[in-house]
C-alpha cells in the first residue's frame, strides 16, 4: 500500500469510531429529550409508546405523540439543518464566522414571514393559504433567506474583510427589525397576534402537520448539500485554484445558496431564529475530526448539530415547568462562547478554517 493510502486508512478508523459515538449519543439524547418534561412518564411506559404500543394512560400517549415527539424531531431537524447551512456558508463566503444567524440570513427569513403575515394578513385568501400547514410560511422564509444570501455573496465579492461582512450582516438585521416594526404599526390585530406568536419561535410550537411540510423541504436541502461535497472541498482552495481544477463557480454558488436558503429558511420559518449553532458546530467538527474534508464534515455536522440542539432542548426542559426555557437563549449560552473562542484563537494561528 502506498504511504498516502496508509495515512488515509489510519485516520479512517479513528473517524469511524468518533462518528459512531456521536450517532449513539444522538440516539440517547433523542430518547432523553422525549423522556424529560413537566409530566413524569415511567421509562417502561415511554418505550412502549415509542414502539407503537399504547400505554394505559391516554394522556401519556397524547403527550408523547403530539408534543414531545414532534418537538424532539424538530430539534434534530433544526440542529442538522442549521449546522449544515453554516458549514456551507463558511466555505462559500470563505469566512469562519459565517452562519445563518450572524450573517442576517435568519433575519431575511423573518422579513419574508413578516411580509407574508403582516402585509397580506388582512386578505382572507392569504389567511387560508398561510393556514396551519405553513407552505406559505416556508416559501416566504426560504425566499427571504435566499435573497439575503445573494446580497451577502454580492458584498463578499467586493469586501474581503471578515469583520466588515459581519457588521453588514448585523446592520441588515437591524434594518429588518425596523421594517418589521413599521409593518407591525400598520397591521391589524389578528395578523399582529399571528406574527408575534411566530416570532417567539420555539421547537415545541411545531406540530405534525408542519413537519409534513418541513421534512420534505429539508430533504431537498440535505440532498443538494451532499451533492455539493466535492465543490465545497474545491472552494477551500480559493476561487481561481477551484476553477483551474474544474469547478463551475457560478453553478456551485447558486446551488449552495438554494440549499442554504432552504435549510436555514425552512427552520427559521417554523422555529424562529436560532442562533450560533450554524457557526459553532462546523468548527467543533473540524477540531474533533482534525479535517477540512467536507466528505466528513457534512455528515458529521449534520449529526452533531442535531445532537447539540437536542442537548440544548433537554437543558431547556430541565426546569420541568409548564413552559420550557426559550431555545434561543440556550443555544446562545452554549454557542456564543464557542464563537468568541474562534475569533480570539484566530489571532494566534490564523488557522481555524
Amino acid at each position, binding site marked *: 500500500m502506498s504511504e*498516502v*493510502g496508509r495515512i*488515509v486508512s489510519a485516520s479512517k478508523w479513528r473517524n469511524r469510531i468518533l462518528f459512531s459515538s456521536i450517532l449513539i449519543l444522538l440516539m440517547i439524547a433523542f430518547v432523553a429529550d422525549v423522556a424529560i418534561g413537566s409530566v413524569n412518564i415511567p421509562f417502561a411506559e415511554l418505550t412502549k409508546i415509542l414502539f407503537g404500543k399504547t400505554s394505559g394512560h391516554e394522556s401519556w400517549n397524547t403527550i408523547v405523540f403530539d408534543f414531545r415527539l414532534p418537538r424532539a424531531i424538530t430539534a434534530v431537524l433544526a440542529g442538522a439543518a442549521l449546522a449544515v447551512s453554516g458549514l456551507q456558508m463558511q466555505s462559500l463566503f470563505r469566512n469562519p464566522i459565517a452562519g445563518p444567524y450572524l450573517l442576517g440570513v435568519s433575519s431575511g427569513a423573518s422579513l419574508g414571514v413578516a411580509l407574508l403575515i403582516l402585509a397580506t394578513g388582512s386578505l382572507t385568501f392569504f389567511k387560508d393559504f398561510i393556514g396551519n400547514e405553513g407552505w406559505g410560511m416556508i416559501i416566504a422564509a426560504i425566499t427571504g433567506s435566499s435573497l439575503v444570501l445573494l446580497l451577502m455573496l454580492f458584498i463578499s465579492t467586493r469586501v474581503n474583510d471578515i469583520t466588515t461582512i459581519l457588521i453588514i450582516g448585523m446592520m441588515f438585521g437591524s434594518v429588518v427589525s425596523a421594517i418589521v416594526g413599521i409593518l407591525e404599526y400598520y397591521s391589524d390585530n389578528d395578523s399582529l397576534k399571528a406574527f408575534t406568536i411566530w416570532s417567539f419561535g420555539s421547537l415545541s410550537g411545531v406540530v405534525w402537520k408542519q413537519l409534513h411540510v418541513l421534512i420534505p423541504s429539508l430533504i431537498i436541502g440535505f440532498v443538494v448539500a451532499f451533492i455539493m461535497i466535492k465543490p465545497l472541498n*474545491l472552494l477551500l482552495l480559493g476561487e*481561481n*485554484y477551484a476553477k483551474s*481544477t*474544474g469547478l*463551475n463557480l457560478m453553478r456551485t454558488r447558486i446551488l449552495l445558496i438554494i440549499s442554504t436558503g432552504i435549510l436555514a429558511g425552512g427552520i427559521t420559518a417554523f422555529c424562529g431564529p436560532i442562533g450560533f449553532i450554524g457557526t459553532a458546530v462546523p468548527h467543533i467538527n473540524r477540531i474533533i475530526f482534525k479535517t477540512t474534508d467536507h466528505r466528513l464534515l457534512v455528515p458529521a455536522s449534520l449529526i452533531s448539530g442535531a445532537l447539540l440542539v437536542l442537548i440544548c432542548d433537554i437543558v431547556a426542559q430541565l426546569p420541568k415547568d409548564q413552559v420550557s426555557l426559550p431555545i434561543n437563549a440556550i443555544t446562545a449560552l452554549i454557542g456564543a462562547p464557542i464563537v468568541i473562542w474562534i475569533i480570539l484563537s484566530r489571532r494566534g494561528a490564523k488557522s481555524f478554517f
Partner: protein
Amino acid sequence: MNVFDLHNLSIGYTSKGERKSLFENIKLSVNKGEFVAVIGANGIGKSTFLRTLSGFQNPLSGSVKLFGRELLEYPKQELALQLSVVLTEKVESKLIRVIELLSIGRYPHINWMGKLSAHDYDVIDEAMNITGISLLAERSLFQLSDGELQKVMIARALVQETPVIILDEPTSHLDLKNKAEVLSLLLHLCREHGKTILVASHEIELALQLADKIILMGFDHYFFSGTPQEVISQNLLKKLFADKEELIRYDQEAGKFIFNLRNVIR
C-alpha cells in the same frame, strides 16, 4: 501539434468600459516539453499574460489555442485535464492538510462522490516523492515554510496529471537554495516527465541558463520570444527595465546583472 498557438493576441483588461491594452498582436507557439520562462519587470503584465493563457481572463482580441483548440471553448472540466496552475495567491484554507490538498487536486479524474482509488493515492505518493515533500503529508498549510508551501503547490499541480503547467512567480519569497531547487525541479519535470512548463520568474540569470525559450515582456509594450542565446546576443535585456539612471546592466561574459549604484550614491 503545438501545445500553445497564440495568434494576434492582445492582452490587458477593460475597466469601466475602458480598454487597457498591455501587449498587442502577440504571435507565439510553444512546443511540447518546452521549458518557457516569462521575464519582465513588476507590473508589466506577466500575470495578465499567464492568466490569459490559463483561461482565467479573456483576451482583448486574437486567439489562444491549446492543443489546436480555442482555449475559451474548453469546458472547465476538460481544461482541468490539460492545464494546471501554481498561482501567486494563497490557498484559502490554512487548516487544510497537505494530503487533503493533494486529494482535491485529483478531482478532475474522479467521480462526483470525491472518493479516491488506490491508483489516485499512488499518483499523490509519486508527486510527493518527486517534489520531496513526503514527510509533510500530514501537516496543515499554516505549518509550512514558504519553500515547502511552494513545493506542495507544485505537487498539487502534478497530481492533476496535466501535460501543461503554468506557474506565476513560484520563486518569489524564497531563499536562494529554495529558488534553485524549485527551478531545477521544474526543469526536471520538463526533461524527465515530458511536461510543458511556462513559468514567470524574476530569476532572470537562472532563467537564461535553464529555459528553452524566453518570453521577454519589456517596457513600451515590447514583446519578444526566442531562445536565451537570442536574448543575450541581441542585447534585449536592456528592454526589460526603463532604466534611465543605468542602475543595472547585464554583463554578457559573466552572465550576471551588475548594479551601478555609484551612479546615484554621490
